[in-house]
């Protein structure tokens, strides 16, 4: 079944979206979209180093993304700059450094467009296996740290006061993010990773009544986007990475449409009814 490049692409995309959705919820809740962007830009440096040192690309991207996360933590403590500015520094230095390293390897012909926008139709069986094994591991670990990580999202101080190890949960979250960046780069490319983290989560927000529900819905919307995007790229031949993101965008726009608002309003009305019924003056 995995002999067909299109089926491989579908599997790779679904694996990526299922993981990006739940993690993307934390990106949205914690307002970390720019952090996701920074890690994604650093991914290009990872690719360059992988070529230079002749190591596995996914592994190199993971390592560089993790290094950038740690650098951010260290700089936040020392540099006295806002994390906003630090992210700007890290993001674009990593991107520039990656491009410089790639351009110095004159003997190397790198498909830059493939790196920036993804090359999902060329994923190998090993890539698919890596995405699914890595993705399953990420989801399992996320489930394990869900309670402290979510409590720390609502209030770090409250979580810590009541005995949760917030530092550990946040560190593990950083590692998971690095894994997802490495996975997603192959599928949608460096420039569009953040889109797969943020857009399905934003769509899910319109329909979710709880955090867990929102994480699952985000994964589902992500998977649907992959299917729609790949389908469109087969029919009309646009580049598949951007097509997936455009599909995600379409779902988001639909979620803002009157149809979706109807669902939303009915739910709100129901909640209000419950509230008034239960109210004892």
């Amino acid at each position, binding site marked *: 079944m995995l002999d067909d490049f299109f089926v491989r692409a579908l599997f790779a995309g679904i694996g990526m979206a299922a993981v990006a959705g739940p993690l993307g919820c934390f990106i*949205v*809740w914690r*307002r970390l979209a720019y952090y996701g962007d920074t890690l994604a830009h650093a991914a290009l440096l990872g690719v360059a180093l992988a070529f230079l040192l002749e190591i596995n690309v996914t592994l190199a991207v993971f390592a560089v993304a993790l290094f950038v996360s740690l650098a951010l933590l260290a700089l936040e403590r020392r540099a006295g700059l806002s994390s906003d500015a630090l992210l700007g520094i890290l993001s674009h230095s990593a991107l520039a450094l990656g491009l410089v390293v790639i351009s110095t390897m004159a003997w190397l012909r790198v498909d830059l467009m493939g790196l920036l926008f993804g090359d999902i139709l060329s994923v190998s069986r090993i890539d698919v296996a890596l995405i699914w094994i890595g993705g399953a591991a990420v989801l399992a670990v996320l489930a394990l740290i869900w*309670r*402290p990580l*979510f*409590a720390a*999202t*609502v*209030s770090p*101080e*409250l*979580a*810590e*006061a*009541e*005995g*949760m*190890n917030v530092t*550990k949960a946040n560190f593990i979250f950083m590692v998971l993010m690095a894994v997802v960046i490495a996975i997603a780069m192959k599928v949608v490319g460096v420039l569009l990773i953040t889109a797969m983290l943020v857009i399905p989560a*934003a769509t899910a*927000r319109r329909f*979710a*009544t*709880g*955090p867990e*529900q*929102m994480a699952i819905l985000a994964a589902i919307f992500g998977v649907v986007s992959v299917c729609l995007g790949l389908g469109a790229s087969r029919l009309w031949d646009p580049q598949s990475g951007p097509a997936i993101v455009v599909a995600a965008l379409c779902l988001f726009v639909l979620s803002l449409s009157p149809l979706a608002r109807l669902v939303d309003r009915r739910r709100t009305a129901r*909640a209000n009814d*419950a*509230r008034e*019924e*239960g*109210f*004892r003056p």
Partner: protein
Amino acid sequence: MDHMAETPTASMKQAPDTTGPAIVSLRGAGVFRSGRWLVRGIDVEIRPGEILTLIGPNGSGKSTTAKMVLGIEKPDEGSAWRAPDLVVGYVPQKLSVDWTLPLSVERFMRLTRSLSKAESDAALARTGVAHLAGSEVRNLSGGEFQRVMLARAIARKPGLLVLDEPVQGVDFAGEIALYDLIGKIRDELNCAVLLISHDLHVVMAATDRVLCLNGHICCQGTPTSVADSEEYRQLFGARGAPQLAVYQHHHDHTHLEDGRVRHADGSITAHCHPDDGHHDHDHGSHHHDHHHPQHAQDENREGRN
């Protein structure tokens, strides 16, 4: 996962003293941030079932002291110790839930531990907000959210309940009711309560000990002579008498704007003298002969948010 279970530091081996098993003990604890001491020399022990109220002006280190008790801030000098098996329930001063986060009251109740529906409903009913179980946290009023946060904290069956300005955003009648409720909860759960109060004058009548901070421990003792106090009458009238108490403040030195200290004899020093009023006092009614300007501002401020 449980950082409460940290082993006591070497200097804390002798922490619990002879008068009873303390559940929390700060010894000479201080926090140093960006070139200055937020608080310094804090010696506090909290015992099971006692209500301790922290008062002091803005920036006096009330929250920092509470954070050392909670283990959120590690002391830069001295030490902080908590009983290893201590369950803490914390009601933070403010908690803003981002609109991107769908969070119902029912889910919020289970934030830091799993809870059966019955336990959750019982705790919500105890604070009088059972009807809000299905509501979105974002849509609650200030007073409703305070009660939900209190319900969440007591559902943990804590040994120590820490409340950071719990009456903030609550009207006067609600304030008395809330203080009354906190007193009852203490009796039911037999938990210690650490209460941070923004108000210099008014503390719960059930308070066992009041600790006044202004970068250091200014004074401490039992709140007494409540109903006959002039300030108390002016502020609240006779109506709130059973729930509220006045803690009077008269100090013998003035903390100037720049952090220096002016003493009764007019001399100015960088710090308080060891023999200033706050270092020795009885534990009955408190009449210090010095005055903090910040305290005065607090007393005069209009309204209570």
